[in-house]
C-alpha cells in the first residue's frame, strides 16, 4: 500500500475571494450575505460534512427575536446581559437584539416553517431567563429547519462554490494577514490551497472535549484551534454551558422548550427542588425567569446540590432528576415537542405523556471562542468568525437559550458583509509563496499518517481528555482538580506527539481526520482549563467552591484571553468589558429577581 504524500508534494489551487470554513447556520448565512453584497465575489464554502449535517441541525427549542407589543429590545438586552452575568459586550448585545427580529423574518421569507398562531402570524414561546416570550420556534426542530432553509436557499446563489466534505487543516497567513486555507478532500486524501482575500471561520463549538455532552461528533473546535495556533486569542473559554436536561449516558438534549411549554423538574421525592435555590416561588405554571424557566447555569448548579444532598435518583448512568411533562397531555406534546416525544420513546423507552423523563446536566455550549469585535473581525487581518466558534461578546458568562440560533443569523450576516468589504479592498496574494506555506501545512498533516512508530491510541487520548475536562471543569470547580486537569492536558499534548494513526490509506481515512481533530481538541481544552484556573471568582457558568464562591467585579469583570504558546501552557491575559447602559447588579431570578428589578427601576427613577 502506498502511503499518502510520500515523495513529491502536490497541492491544487483554487482562487476565491472569500473562504468560509464551516457550513452550518453561521457559515451559510455568511455565504448568502457575501453573495448578496456582491455577486462577483467568488465564495468558497468549505465544510468537513455536507452542510445539512452541521450541528445547527440539532438545535431544538427556538431562536430569539422581540415581536410582542409588551416586549422591548431593552428587555431582551437586559435578559441577555444579566443572564451573561454582565460579562457581555453591551454595545454588541444592543446591536444583536436590534437585528434578531429582522433576521427571523428573513428566514421566514426564505421558507423556514415557523410555528404559527391561528391568525397566520408566527408564534413565540417562553424560554429560560427570558422575561417575555420571544422565542420563535418550528415545533422542537428549530435548528433543523433553520439549517435546511439556509442550505437550500444558498443553492440560489451561483457565486457560492461549496466544498462539501473537505476538511480544513490550516489557515494560510502571510504578510500579517490571512490569505487562504488548506483543505483535505476526505474522499481522496488530496490537498487544495484555497486562496482567499478574507476568511470566515464558522466551525461551531468544542463540546466534544467533554465526556457527557449534547454535541455531535463533529463539534471538535477545529476553527477555534486553527485561529488560536495563528496567534488569535481565545476569549472567555472557561465558560462552558451545562444544559440541565439531557439524556443520561449519551447526553442527548431534551430542549429547554420542554420547560418553556410547562415541563417541571422533580427530585426523587417528586419535589420541585428549584424553589430551594432562589428560583421560587413554585407556582403551577412557572412564570418567566423563575423556577424551571430560570437560566441554564443556575438549573445545572441546583442539580449538583441536589445530588450532594442525596435527593436525586440513581440510574445506570449516574444520578438523574425527573423532567415531568405528563400534565401537558399527549396531543399537545406531539404538536409542540414531537422530537422530544420520539427521543424519549425510542432511546429511553419512556412515554413522556405517562412517565417522567430521567435527565441530568451535560455539556452543551462553549460561550467563549475566537476573539472578534462587533464586526466579527479577529485581531488577525482578513480573519472573521461567527457563531459558536466566535466570541463576539453577547453571551458573557452564560448564554440564554434561543440566543445562539439568533446569533448565527445576525453575526453570520455581519461576517459575510464585512469579509466581502475586506476582500474587495485588498489585492490577491502571491500564489507561489502561499503554496509553499500550504505545502508545509500539508506535510504537517500527512506526517500523522506517514509516521509509523506511534504507540498512543486516538480513542484512549480522547477519552482521557474528556474525562479530565469533566473532572476539573464541570459545573462546580476546585483549584486542585483544575490544576490536575491542566497537568493532564499538558501530558496528553505530549503523548499526542506519539499518536498512532492505524489507517494508512488515502480514501476516506477517518482515523486520520480523528487524529487531526484530537489535536485541535487538546489545544482548545488546554485554553479552557487554563482560563478556568486563572479566574479566581464565580460567575455564570464558572462556579468555584474553593474560596472564590462570589463574583469579583473588582478583579474579574474582565474577559479572559488565552494565547497559544506551542508546547507550553497558554498565556492568559485579560481584556476590558464594554459596559454601556447596564451596570453590573445582583443576578437574581424568581421572586428575588422581580424584587431586584423593582429596586433597580426605582433607583433609576430617583
Amino acid at each position, binding site marked *: *500500500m*502506498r502511503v499518502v504524500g510520500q515523495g513529491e508534494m502536490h497541492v491544487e489551487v483554487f482562487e476565491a475571494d472569500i473562504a468560509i470554513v464551516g457550513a452550518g447556520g453561521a457559515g451559510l448565512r455568511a455565504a448568502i450575505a457575501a453573495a448578496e453584497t456582491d455577486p462577483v465575489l467568488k465564495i468558497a464554502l468549505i465544510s468537513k*460534512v*455536507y452542510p*445539512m*449535517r*452541521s*450541528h445547527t*441541525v*440539532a438545535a431544538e427549542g427556538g431562536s430569539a427575536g422581540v415581536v410582542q407589543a409588551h416586549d422591548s429590545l431593552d428587555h431582551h438586552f437586559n435578559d441577555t446581559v444579566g443572564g451573561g452575568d454582565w460579562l457581555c459586550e453591551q454595545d454588541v448585545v444592543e446591536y444583536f437584539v436590534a437585528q434578531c427580529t*429582522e433576521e427571523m*423574518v*428573513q428566514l*421566514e*421569507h*426564505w*421558507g423556514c*416553517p*415557523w*410555528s*404559527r398562531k*391561528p*391568525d*397566520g*402570524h*408566527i408564534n413565540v414561546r417562553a424560554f429560560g431567563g427570558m422575561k417575555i416570550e420571544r422565542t420563535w420556534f418550528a415545533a422542537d*426542530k428549530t435548528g*433543523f429547519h433553520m439549517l*435546511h432553509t439556509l442550505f*437550500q*436557499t444558498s*443553492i*440560489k446563489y451561483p457565486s457560492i462554490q461549496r466544498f*462539501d466534505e473537505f476538511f480544513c487543516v490550516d489557515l494560510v497567513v502571510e504578510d500579517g494577514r490571512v490569505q487562504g486555507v488548506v483543505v483535505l478532500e476526505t*474522499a481522496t486524501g488530496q490537498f487544495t490551497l484555497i486562496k482567499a482575500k478574507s476568511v470566515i471561520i464558522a466551525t461551531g463549538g468544542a463540546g466534544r472535549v467533554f465526556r457527557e455532552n449534547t454535541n*455531535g*461528533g463533529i463539534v471538535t473546535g477545529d476553527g477555534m484551534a486553527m485561529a488560536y495556533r495563528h496567534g488569535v486569542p481565545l476569549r472567555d473559554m472557561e465558560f462552558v454551558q451545562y444544559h440541565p436536561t439531557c439524556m443520561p*449516558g449519551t447526553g*442527548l*438534549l431534551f430542549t429547554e422548550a420542554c420547560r418553556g411549554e410547562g415541563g417541571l423538574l422533580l427530585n426523587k421525592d417528586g419535589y420541585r427542588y428549584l424553589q430551594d435555590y432562589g428560583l421560587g416561588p413554585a407556582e403551577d405554571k412557572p412564570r418567566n425567569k423563575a423556577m424551571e424557566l430560570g437560566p441554564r447555569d443556575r438549573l445545572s448548579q441546583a442539580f449538583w446540590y441536589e445530588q450532594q444532598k442525596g435527593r436525586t435518583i440513581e440510574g*445506570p448512568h449516574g444520578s438523574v432528576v425527573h423532567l415531568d411533562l405528563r400534565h401537558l397531555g399527549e396531543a399537545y406534546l406531539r404538536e409542540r415537542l414531537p422530537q422530544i416525544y*420520539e427521543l424519549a420513546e425510542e*432511546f429511553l423507552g419512556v412515554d413522556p405523556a405517562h412517565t417522567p423523563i430521567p435527565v441530568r446536566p451535560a455539556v452543551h455550549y462553549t460561550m467563549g471562542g475566537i476573539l472578534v469585535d462587533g464586526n466579527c473581525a479577529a485581531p488577525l487581518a482578513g480573519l472573521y468568525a461567527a457563531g459558536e466558534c466566535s466570541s463576539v461578546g453577547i453571551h458573557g458568562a452564560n448564554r440564554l437559550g434561543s440566543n445562539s440560533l439568533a446569533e448565527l443569523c445576525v453575526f453570520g450576516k455581519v461576517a459575510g458583509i464585512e469579509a466581502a468589504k475586506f476582500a474587495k479592498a485588498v489585492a490577491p496574494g502571491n500564489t507561489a509563496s502561499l503554496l509553499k506555506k500550504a505545502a508545509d501545512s500539508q506535510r504537517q498533516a500527512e506526517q500523522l499518517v506517514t509516521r509509523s*512508530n506511534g*504507540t498512543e*491510541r*486516538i*480513542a*484512549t487520548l480522547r*477519552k482521557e481528555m474528556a474525562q479530565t475536562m469533566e473532572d476539573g471543569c464541570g459545573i462546580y470547580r476546585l483549584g486542585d482538580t483544575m490544576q490536575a486537569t491542566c497537568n493532564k492536558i499538558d501530558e496528553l499534548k505530549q503523548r499526542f506527539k506519539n499518536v*498512532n*494513526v*492505524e*489507517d494508512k*490509506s488515502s*480514501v*476516506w*481515512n*477517518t*482515523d486520520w481526520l480523528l487524529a487531526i481533530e484530537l489535536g485541535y481538541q487538546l489545544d482548545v481544552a488546554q485554553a479552557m482549563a487554563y482560563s478556568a484556573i486563572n479566574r479566581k471568582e464565580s460567575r455564570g457558568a464558572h462556579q468555584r467552591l474553593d474560596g472564590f464562591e462570589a463574583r469579583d467585579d473588582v478583579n474579574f469583570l474582565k474577559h479572559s484571553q488565552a494565547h497559544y504558546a506551542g508546547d507550553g501552557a497558554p498565556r492568559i491575559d485579560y481584556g476590558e468589558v464594554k459596559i454601556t447602559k447596564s451596570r453590573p447588579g445582583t443576578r437574581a431570578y424568581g421572586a428575588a429577581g422581580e424584587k431586584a428589578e423593582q429596586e433597580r427601576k426605582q433607583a433609576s427613577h430617583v
Partner: protein
Amino acid sequence: MELQARRQNRKESRPAMSEIEKTIPIEVLRYRPEQDTEPVLQTFQVPFTDDMSVLQGLQYIKDYLDGSLSFRWSCRMAICGSCGMMVNGKPSLSCKTFLRDYYPGGLRIEALAHFPIERDLVIVMDDFIEKLESIKPYIIPKTPRALSEGEYLQTPEERDVYEQFSSCINCMLCYAACPQYGLNSKFVGPGIMALLHRYNMDSRDGGTEQRMELVHSEDGVFNCTAVGYCSEVCPKHVDPANAVNINKTESAKDYFLRFVAPKGAAK
C-alpha cells in the same frame, strides 16, 4: 514490542469487562478501494449493554478493534441524517437502531443500498446532492415582500399541508429502499420529490410551474411503481411515496389540461 505496547494500551482503555457481560457478533461489509477488489464481510465481537445503538457498536469497533473502519455519523439523535446504513438488509439510521434487538444472533451492517460504495460504510452521495440542487429547493415568492412588511401570513392549516414533507433529513434511506432508483439512478427518487413537493405546497411559493418540468420528465415521477417501501423506512414520517404519487396525479392533470387550455394557461 510496539504491538505489545499497543495491546496493553487497548486493554487499559476499554470499558471494564465486568460491567459488560454480553457480546454480539457484528458483521460489517468492508471495502477499502486501495486494497480490496470487491467488498468483503468482516466479523467483530462487540461487548454491549442494552441501551447501545448500532452506531455505538461501530464506534466501539473503531475505537478498540479496528481503527480503519470508516462510516459517517454525527448527531447521534436521528436529526443530522449522516448514519444511514443497511442493518440486516433494512435501510436504517444506525443511531436509533439498537443492538439488543439483534441479540444473540448478531447483525450484518452494509453501506446504504443502491449507492456506489466509496469505502466501507461510506457511500458516494453526489447524485443525491446534484438532484437536490436541481429542483430549486427554495421559495420562489408568489408575492414578493419586503422585510419591513414582516412575515408572510400562513395559518397553521396552511403550514400543515407541507410541514411533513419539510421534515426530510436527507438520510437517503428511501433511496436505499427504492428498487426503481437502484435500477435507474436517473430517477429523481423519493426524498427529492418530497422536497420538491414541500416547496410546491407552501402557500408562500409560486414556483410550481418551474418545478413541474422535472416531475413530468423521463426521470420524473412515472418511474415510481408504488412499491411503497420508501415511506416504510423513513425515520421521520415524511412519507415520500405520498409526495411522488400525488405528483403523478398532478402531472397527469397537467397533461390532460394541455389539450383543453392553450400552453402556459394550465396551472
